[in-house]
């Protein structure tokens, strides 16, 4: 099956988040609320943001993430900066 760029970005985010927070990759799905699924607070969310910025070599101002709590929307925000 053909994988779109956003699917690929999403997959990389899920893999990276799973590794960073030591969660099995298969437990994470695109529409999960990452605060709940990963059990993280706002500080750890910023840590994830830094990890993602470093991985994708982008800058993603945190005001663009206001109200974003699922991986799919996060992927679309990142994709828009690639």
């Amino acid at each position, binding site marked *: 099956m053909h994988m779109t760029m956003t699917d690929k970005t999403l997959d990389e985010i899920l893999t990276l988040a799973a590794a960073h927070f030591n969660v099995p990759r298969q437990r994470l799905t695109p529409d999960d609320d990452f605060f709940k699924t990963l059990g993280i*607070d*706002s*500080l750890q*969310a*910023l*840590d994830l*943001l*830094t*990890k993602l*910025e*470093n991985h994708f*070599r982008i*800058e993603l*101002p*945190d*005001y663009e*993430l*206001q109200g974003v709590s699922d991986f799919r929307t996060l992927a679309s925000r990142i994709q828009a900066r690639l």
Partner: protein
Amino acid sequence: MNQFKGETLSWEVKDSVLELALHRQPCNEIGSTTIAELESFVAALRPIETEAHALIIYSELKPGFCAGADLRELYRRSREMAQADALRGVRHYVERIHAVMNAIDASPLTTIAAVHGVTFGGGFELALTCDLIVADKMARFCFPELRLGLIPSFGGIPRLKRDLGNSVVRDLLLTGRSFNAAKAQQIGLVSQVVGEGEALRAARATAAAAKKFIKVIPYEELKQEVDLFCELFSRPAVEAGLRKFVESTDALPYLP
């Protein structure tokens, strides 16, 4: 006194480098105990300056360098007092921390902040007093108090203006956003970005090679910052923002 171990921080001289380690849980929030110990530190600085050539400031805690002022303590204490007394208390708190920051800024030692993780508010401002900032690639910088309707109060704006261009300063202050170490290096704030867990090692290597450096300190603008912060602190919107922050159940409620 070239060695000290306190509740919130410790210092010692090693190989002619003075190292100041921050270790107050959860992320080195600067409250009354930290200020008192920082005051002891700057009082000890002058004699140490004859036996050391550099100062490194770093955190021993995993979450980061420093999360800034202990706003919970500041809010709680100000609520316990009548408004006029509270404002006097806030001014006293800010003036004390300014005296500490100015003393570090004015030190003839080469000063290096080795930062990682959270480098927010007063923690960011503490790093700005240093001649050099060495950052772990996972470091993140921000002035979260801007989202509460307050300005940085530990000398941040005058020092940012001293070190960076106006467009960058406006971007950071008008949006209150956070940014990572790569961005910090790109804008000229950070001199070196290193791998995770490598900031202190890199700072020690830099200190070994460094010469002394004296820089200009914007005393007048720093004084104006104290006045403006105290004026803002008395506003109802700020009081409401602080209450929301203090009552948050999030461990460290930095995002809006």
